[in-house]
């Protein structure tokens, strides 16, 4: 460290006057105080904007789900247009097995 200090010292190669640095510090302090003073106003505008956006989003979601709920599903369309026997006849064996929820157990013989 001493070696380096001897070589170049601790000065910077750009010489700024003390006045320049002092003025910059003062400007920075003023700007920080001003920015903080205007922050609540900006905060209010931002909050209103966010509230408006979220209200619109909730409304949109509500409308979309209403439309969706009232739309007839494909299954319902088939149900409404065909009789049960027609539906069952149109299904393959595997499909029939998959909707067969009841397992009919053998009835034990009565002794």
């Amino acid at each position: 460290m001493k070696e380096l200090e001897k070589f170049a010292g601790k000065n910077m190669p750009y010489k700024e006057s003390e006045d320049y640095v002092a003025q910059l510090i003062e400007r920075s302090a003023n700007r920080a105080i001003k920015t903080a003073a205007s922050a609540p106003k900006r905060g209010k505008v931002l909050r209103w904007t966010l509230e408006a956006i979220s209200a619109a989003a909730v409304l949109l979601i509500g409308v979309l789900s209403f439309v969706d709920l009232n739309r007839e599903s494909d299954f319902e369309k088939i149900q409404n247009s065909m009789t049960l026997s027609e539906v069952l006849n149109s299904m393959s064996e595997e499909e029939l097995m998959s909707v067969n929820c009841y397992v009919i157990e053998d009835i034990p013989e009565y002794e």
Partner: protein
Amino acid sequence: MRSKATEIEILEMLRNPQERDRGFRLLLSTYGDKLYWHIRRMVVSREDAEDAMQEMSIKVYSKLDSFKGDSSLFTWMYTIATNEALQVLRKQAGLFRSLDDSDLANSLVDTLYAENAVECSAAEIIFQEALLQLPTQQRLAFNMRYYDELTYEEMAAVTGKNVSTLKSNYHFAVEKVKKFIKENAI
């Protein structure tokens, strides 16, 4: 020990809403000079240093309530100043480049030559050029120790790194700077 009495006085002013702005001005006038030069050494350009200084001041003022007093006010502000300086460098390096990219180092050296005053010595310029060749973390460690004479504990508080990492960063930085000077000094 960094003027503790003044820090306590400033803290009292900052906690009092009527005295807050005056306390903040006093805080900046106490440490502003040191923080400006820390930023300037990192970003080199005068214009960038001004921007970083202003951003730092805004952040310090807006976060005064969150200052818990775990470190000194100076260390806390120094951390914010360091982050602002690194932010400037990140912008310069671009989104996908590392802070240790050689293009960034070359651009900082160009700025150094463009902004240096006529009266400075060749040794000062070579020394600064040597520093700008260092990886950013080593340059930061070197600046904190060499120029600002922070203790390793203070450096650890600022960077969030452990003392042994900082010691090795500083050691490698000194070796690289010496080597650069040997190779480039006239």
